[in-house]
């Protein structure tokens, strides 16, 4: 969408059109924890897409299945597979959280305050419990990840 005034300013004296911020780099600013979830959700989605489509499907099926199998046995191969599992868990859990909020199942209500109102989700006990569960699962996954890489068998989703 263009501003009504932007064309006017651009015409006058060849002024550059500068947009503040970093575009997609805005995803990586940490202001609140939901934004961190948002960023990991996008990164995990992209990672899973490329891992499944490019590595698992295209490379495995059309380039060299034997090369993929031998790479899976190496530590980097296992790290990539373990990361896929961790991202899959996060993506699913966070996606489910968003669904619950969108359907109105997790719901608080903003608290009026003379200085500054408290946002609705900050007052939802179910949301708080769900967040704590997500953090516990994330910590467990991070602890399990080195074990999976060291002792895990070849993982093929």
């Amino acid at each position: 969408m263009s501003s009504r005034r932007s064309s006017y300013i651009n015409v006058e004296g060849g002024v550059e059109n500068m947009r503040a911020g970093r575009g997609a780099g805005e995803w990586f600013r940490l202001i609140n924890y939901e934004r961190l979830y948002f960023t990991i959700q996008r990164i995990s989605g992209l990672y899973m897409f490329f891992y499944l489509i490019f590595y698992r499907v295209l490379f495995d099926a059309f380039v060299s299945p034997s090369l993929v199998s031998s790479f899976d046995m190496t530590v980097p191969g296992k790290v990539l597979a373990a990361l896929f599992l961790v991202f899959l868990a996060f993506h699913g859990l966070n996606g489910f959280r968003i669904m619950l909020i969108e359907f109105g199942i997790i719901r608080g209500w903003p608290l009026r305050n003379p200085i500054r109102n408290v946002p609705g989700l900050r007052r939802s006990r179910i949301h708080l419990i769900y967040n704590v569960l997500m953090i516990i699962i994330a910590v467990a996954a991070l602890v399990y990840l080195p074990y999976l890489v060291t002792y895990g068998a070849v993982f093929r989703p």
Partner: protein
Amino acid sequence: MPALTVKVKRFDGRKSWWQEYKVDIKSRKISVLDVLLKIKEEQDPTLAVRYSCRMAICGSCGMVINGVPRLACQTLLAEIKDDTITVEPMWNHRVIKDLVVDTEPNFEKLRKVKPYTIRDLKEIYESDREIGQKPEELEKYYNFAYCIECGLCMAACPVVATNPRFLGPMALAAAYRWSADSRDQGWPVRAKIVDTDEGVWSCHLAYTCSAVCPRGVDPGFAIQLVKAALMRRAKKL
């Protein structure tokens, strides 16, 4: 007197650069806007800042202070413990000069959702009946009516950063506020506008809009309420 270092991201229409100012302050019980005006008066009259009411009502002085979108008049130095302050223009907006950004696209989006009461005019003009409202009906939208349209939520939204066509939290919260008003009959009209890719379905719940809102309007939550209403095909919010 303690010296404060203020780093301002400037833009003169051609190039952008960081400029550093040293400001002597007597107390930390002043706002960032006061500091910027002190710089403007005593050191650099070319520094462009937009402001008006100085009491967080007009929403003119939105900018990014130490990495968080805030109102300069509402942000006291006492809240910022650091002796260095960085000030940038609001993200996701076209910069006109220094800290002044073009907020017109926000208002274009706001106008799209028809932010006013839609009601049968014949009923209003021909009837003597007063259109009343119960306290519980007021409660449904009262919090969302606090919006001062400062645009900080638009600056904070990571979706607006990559999708400028997204209506954004400011307009979508207004869509909820007006549709939830018991005196309004415009929900079917607004539902068609917000039930699109550029409407509520582009919101991925980063919730930064609600975190930075200087009035605690909670636009992120308003968007989820609209989504829930759309999914249950509600006739009225």
